[in-house]
C-alpha cells in the first residue's frame, strides 16, 4: 500500500529533514510513527499525501509512484487518503458541517447523503450539537475532532493522522483511537504520528521511530 525507497528530503537551503528512509506499510496495517519534535514525522506524512515531493528517492502509494505523478492526477490520489493535519486546517468561515462535508463534496456526493453521513460521523465524535458552529467558536479539542471527522468521513483507503490527540483528554483519546481502529478493521491503512507514549503502549501496534530524519527503530523489523 505504502512504499518508500531511499527517500531523502530537504527543504530549500536546510539540512535533510528525512535521510535515506526506506519503508513498507502493507494494506490494512496500523502504524505509529514517533520521534522527538522536529524528527521528521510530519514531513514523512506530507510525502504520503503529495504535499511535498522527495528530493531523492521513490514514494509509491497504492501502486502509484507519487514522485512521477502528473499534478492533474494528484487529486485522485488524495481522495484515497484522509489526513488529519497537525494544525487542523479548518476553514474558519464555514460551519462545522461544511468543513466536514468538503471531503464528500469533492467526491460529488449529493447533499442529502452528505448531511446524513456528516451527522453520523460527528455523532461518533460526540460533536453533533456543534454542527452549525464555526471552528473559531470551538474548543481546541473539539477542533481536533472536527479535523479527524473530515479525514474519516469518506472512509478513505489510507488514513494519515498527525498528532490527532494532542488536545484531547484521556476519554476522547480512547474514543478517537477506537474509531481509528474500527476504520482499520474495515480495511483502511492507518498511520498515526504521535508523541503520546501511552497511546502507543496501550495499542500493541507496529511502531516506527524517527530521529533526525532517520528511521532508528521499526518494531516490525526488529
Amino acid at each position: 500500500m505504502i512504499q518508500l525507497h531511499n527517500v531523502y528530503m530537504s527543504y530549500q537551503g536546510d539540512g535533510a529533514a528525512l535521510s535515506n528512509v526506506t519503508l513498507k506499510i502493507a494494506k490494512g496495517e496500523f502504524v505509529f510513527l514517533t520521534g522527538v519534535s522536529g524528527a521528521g514525522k510530519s514531513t514523512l506524512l506530507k510525502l504520503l499525501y503529495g504535499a511535498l515531493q522527495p528530493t531523492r528517492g521513490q514514494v509509491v502509494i497504492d501502486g502509484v509512484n507519487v514522485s512521477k505523478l502528473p499534478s492533474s492526477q494528484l487529486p485522485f490520489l488524495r481522495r484515497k487518503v484522509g489526513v488529519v493535519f497537525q494544525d487542523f486546517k479548518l476553514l474558519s468561515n464555514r460551519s462545522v458541517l461544511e468543513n466536514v462535508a468538503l471531503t464528500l463534496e469533492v467526491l460529488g456526493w449529493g447533499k442529502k447523503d452528505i448531511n446524513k453521513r456528516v451527522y453520523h460521523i460527528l455523532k461518533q465524535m460526540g460533536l453533533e450539537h456543534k454542527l452549525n458552529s464555526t471552528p473559531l467558536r470551538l474548543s481546541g479539542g473539539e477542533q481536533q475532532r472536527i479535523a479527524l471527522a473530515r479525514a474519516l468521513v469518506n472512509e478513505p483507503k489510507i488514513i494519515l493522522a498527525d498528532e490527532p490527540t494532542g488536545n484531547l483528554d484521556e476519554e476522547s483519546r480512547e474514543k478517537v483511537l477506537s474509531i481509528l481502529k474500527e476504520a482499520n478493521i474495515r480495511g483502511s491503512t492507518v498511520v498515526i504520528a504521535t508523541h503520546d507514549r501511552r497511546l502507543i503502549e496501550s495499542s500493541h501496534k507496529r511502531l516506527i521511530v524517527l530521529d533526525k530524519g532517520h528511521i532508528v527503530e521499526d518494531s516490525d523489523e526488529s
Partner: protein
Amino acid sequence: MSRKNVAKRPKLAREGVGGRLHYFVERAFTNIRQNLPVNLLTIGTISLAFLILSLALLIFVNLERVTETWSDRVQVTAYFEGDLSPGDLSTLKARIKAIKGTADIDYVSREEALQRFSGRLKGQEALLEGVSYEILPSSLEIHLKKDNRDSEAVSRYVAQLKKIPLITEVQYGEEWVKRFSHFMNLVRFAGILVAGFIVLAVVFIVANTIKLTIYARKDELELMGLVGATRLFIKVPFLIEGVVQGVVGASVALLVLTGVYLAFLHNADFFFSFNTIEAGLLFLPASHIVALLFGGAALGFLGSLASLKRFISL
C-alpha cells in the same frame, strides 16, 4: 454502516454537467455570503471603477455627438454663371447628388444671399445702402455625409464637383476644413488615449482587487487541493464569484450613472435654463450598456482566473 455502502459513493449530486453547474453556482453564492465583508468591498471597488469608466464613456458619447454637430458646418458652395432655368437646376442637382458623399443640396437664390449678407453685417447696415441683390451670385450649398468631412475627402469631393461643366466656382473654406480636420483627429486621438487609459486602469484596479480577495482566502484554496479537489473544482466557484462581482459591480455603476444623469438633466434644466433635451444630452446607448455588463463579467472572470493561477499549482 458497512464499508461497501460507503466505498461505492452514493448517487451524485445531480449527475451530468447540469448537476455540477448547479453545485458550483450554489457554492459560489454560499462563498459570497460567507465572505460578505470582503465581497462587499470588492463589489464596491468594481462599481466605482466602472462608474468612472461609464462616466468617461458617457462624456465620450456626448462629445462625439457635439463634434458631429460641428462638422455639419463643413459645406461646399458651388457657384454658376448667371441664372439657371428650373430644368437646368434640377439636372445639375441630380448630377451633384450622384457624386459619392453628397448628403443635401440647398439652392440659395440672390435674394436669400443678400438677406444672409445683411444679417452678417448687423450694426453696419449703412454699408448696404444702394447695393442691389444682383451683385450677389446665386449658389448651391452642398452638405456632405458624415464620413466625407475630413480635409482629404472634401478636396476629393470638390475635384469631382469641378468636373461638372455648369459650375464655375467652388468654395469650401479649405483652410477651415483643414484645421477642423486636424482638430477632430486630435480630439479623437486624445479621446481614445484617455478612454484606453481608463479602461486599462479599471481593468487593473478590478484585477488587483480580486487578487487581494483571493489572497485573503489562500488557506481555502490550499485545503481544497489537499482534500482531493481537482483544479477545475476549486476554480469554478471562484470564477463564478468573480463573474457575479463583475456584473453586480457594473450594474451598480450603471444604476448610479443613470441616477446622476437624470439628476443632471433635471438640474441643468432648472439652474441654467438650458434645455437638455433640445441640447440632446445623450445617455449611453444600449450597445454600450450591454458591453459594460459583459465587460464586468469578463473582467471578473479573467481577474479571478489570473489570480487563481498564482495559488493553484497543485
